[in-house]
């Protein structure tokens, strides 16, 4: 029998944010080459932040991503505040956690309903899926809009919000706006619970695998803005020591840097967070998840979608809790710039987002490093693709291989635009 040689080329990966491609060369029962090729041009944000005042930074880093601007703002303000040796206090801390709840709701609802569910239910698009599952899509869009509303409450607008600043926020939300939003959030709780059950029943492949999970871990709450870096293999590291264990390096086929932990690929994002923080879930989330019969920690990467649904439930409950306790207050403190180095690491929807800012005595950026979650997941995605395609079977038709590869990649909810410092499939066999 002649050896089958296939070259699959996905020139533009659909339904992901940004521009990337997949090159796959198969020879018989062997994958000769597999490259997640990120060709979106580098955006050089780190360089053009240099020389800018701390006042400009939150609005500038928000422009790195249209989906997760809050994450970039939060990691940046925490890093700069550490450099300035300032603590904005509990009100700001609570509002930043609320801000993050909004972003998780918005980003996760988008991914679950418009990107992941169509893959698992066999639809080419969310629009096609909406013909068969209109109520589920409406529910997803409503949850997404609640996330947008939270971001608008604190940021003035839901895309590239402008309310965050070093030291706190530009304003405190009006109590009547808080009360109106709180009512909507409470009304949506049954939808979030039902969503978890719906996603748990999606026909995802049962394909367990070994991988290293990395996330933040907080002493007593599910991690968003604070915590230590932990893994399922014993890592327990302060964020300022990130560079001691994590490395970034160039690969020829990507404008995004690859990352490794102690030289090996690792996973960041909702599944890693949930796997490492099951004991930090609010009780109603634990109860609702237990009813699904799906157990975490999970070694099935396709449980990422369920992890997102669980985090929608978490974010909704947290937002309700924070708004129930809301009192208007001074929205922050005035920074006193000083020369220094600070670190910020927060849990963006796609995983840890690490920042390092060096500031001068006038509060201008001397240098900065920004390590986005999708860049950190790149090596893990390639590792997963390699074994997932072998497990799926390389003797499948090209279209099936292409579709499976795209499903594996989209499961990570990659944000390619963010990661460029990143899909088309080119398959040869």
């Amino acid at each position, binding site marked *: 029998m002649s050896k089958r040689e296939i070259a699959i080329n996905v020139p533009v990966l659909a339904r992901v944010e940004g521009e990337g491609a997949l090159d796959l060369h198969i020879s018989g029962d062997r994958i000769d080459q597999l490259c997640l090729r990120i060709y979106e041009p580098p955006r050089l944000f780190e360089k053009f932040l240099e020389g800018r005042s701390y006042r400009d930074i939150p609005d500038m880093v928000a422009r790195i991503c*249209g989906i997760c601007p809050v994450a970039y703002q939060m990691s940046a303000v925490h890093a700069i505040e550490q450099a300035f040796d300032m603590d904005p206090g509990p009100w700001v801390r609570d509002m930043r956690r609320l801000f993050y709840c909004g972003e998780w709701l918005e980003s996760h609802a988008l991914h679950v309903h*418009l990107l992941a569910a169509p893959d698992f239910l066999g639809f080419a698009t969310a629009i096609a899926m909406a013909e068969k599952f209109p109520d589920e899509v409406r529910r997803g869009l409503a949850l*997404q809009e609640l996330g947008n509303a939270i971001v608008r409450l604190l940021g003035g607008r*839901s895309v590239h919000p402008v309310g965050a600043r070093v030291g706190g926020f530009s304003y405190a939300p009006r109590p009547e706006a808080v009360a109106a939003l709180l009512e909507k959030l409470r009304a949506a709780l049954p939808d979030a619970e039902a969503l978890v059950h719906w996603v748990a029943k999606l026909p995802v492949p049962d394909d367990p695998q070994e991988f290293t999970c990395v996330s933040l871990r907080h002493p007593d709450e599910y991690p968003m803005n604070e915590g230590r870096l932990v893994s399922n293999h014993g890592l327990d590291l302060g964020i300022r020591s990130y560079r001691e264990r994590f490395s970034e390096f160039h690969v020829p086929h990507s404008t995004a840097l690859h990352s490794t932990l102690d030289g090996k690929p690792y996973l960041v994002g909702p599944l890693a967070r949930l796997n490492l923080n099951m004991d930090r879930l609010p009780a109603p989330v634990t109860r609702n998840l237990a009813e699904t019969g799906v157990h975490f920690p999970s070694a099935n990467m396709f449980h990422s979608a369920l992890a997102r649904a669980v985090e929608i439930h978490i974010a909704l409950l947290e937002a309700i809790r924070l708004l129930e306790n809301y009192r208007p207050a001074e929205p922050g403190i005035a920074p006193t710039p000083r020369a220094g180095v600070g670190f910020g690491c927060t849990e963006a929807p796609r995983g840890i987002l690490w920042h390092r800012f060096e500031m001068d005595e006038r509060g201008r950026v001397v240098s900065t490093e920004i390590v986005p979650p999708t860049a950190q997941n790149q090596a893990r995605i390639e590792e997963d693709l390699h074994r997932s395609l072998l497990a799926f079977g390389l003797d499948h038709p090209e279209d099936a291989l292409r579709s499976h590869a795209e499903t594996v990649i989209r499961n990570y909810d990659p944000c390619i635009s963010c990661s460029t410092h990143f899909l088309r499939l080119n398959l040869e066999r």
Partner: protein
Amino acid sequence: MKTLVLGVGSPFGADRLGWLAIDALRSRLDGAFDLEACDRPGARLLALMRGRERVVIIDAVMGDIGAGSLHCLRPEQLSSSTAPAVHGFGVAEAVALAGVLGELPPELTLIGIGAGRGDAVPNVDWDALAALVQDQPTGANPPGTDYS
């Protein structure tokens, strides 16, 4: 009920035309219109349109049409005419999804402005655009009509 006019765009080159349209319409339209510039709203368009009797969406379009020319479009014409969008979900997809879910406003007017080639922002007859927003009901003109 006021007509909602949405100018869709991004900061990049001629993709700003939707935003520039909203700026230009502020001095040309009366209080019967709510004007909003949107940065690649994606599926959020459904929430923005919900409950409205009439919505006008203005966006830059690429293709073999005159730079700065104005075109009334049918929803099915959008697939090849919208700018790159967040997660590949742009105006065309949002309008199609709203259609599937039965959530399109009773009257939806889609106006495309020819983006031309390259990044340069073309000259646009904003008075003609204002007239189109005020007077032109959906489907009353042949799609693709050039108003420049």
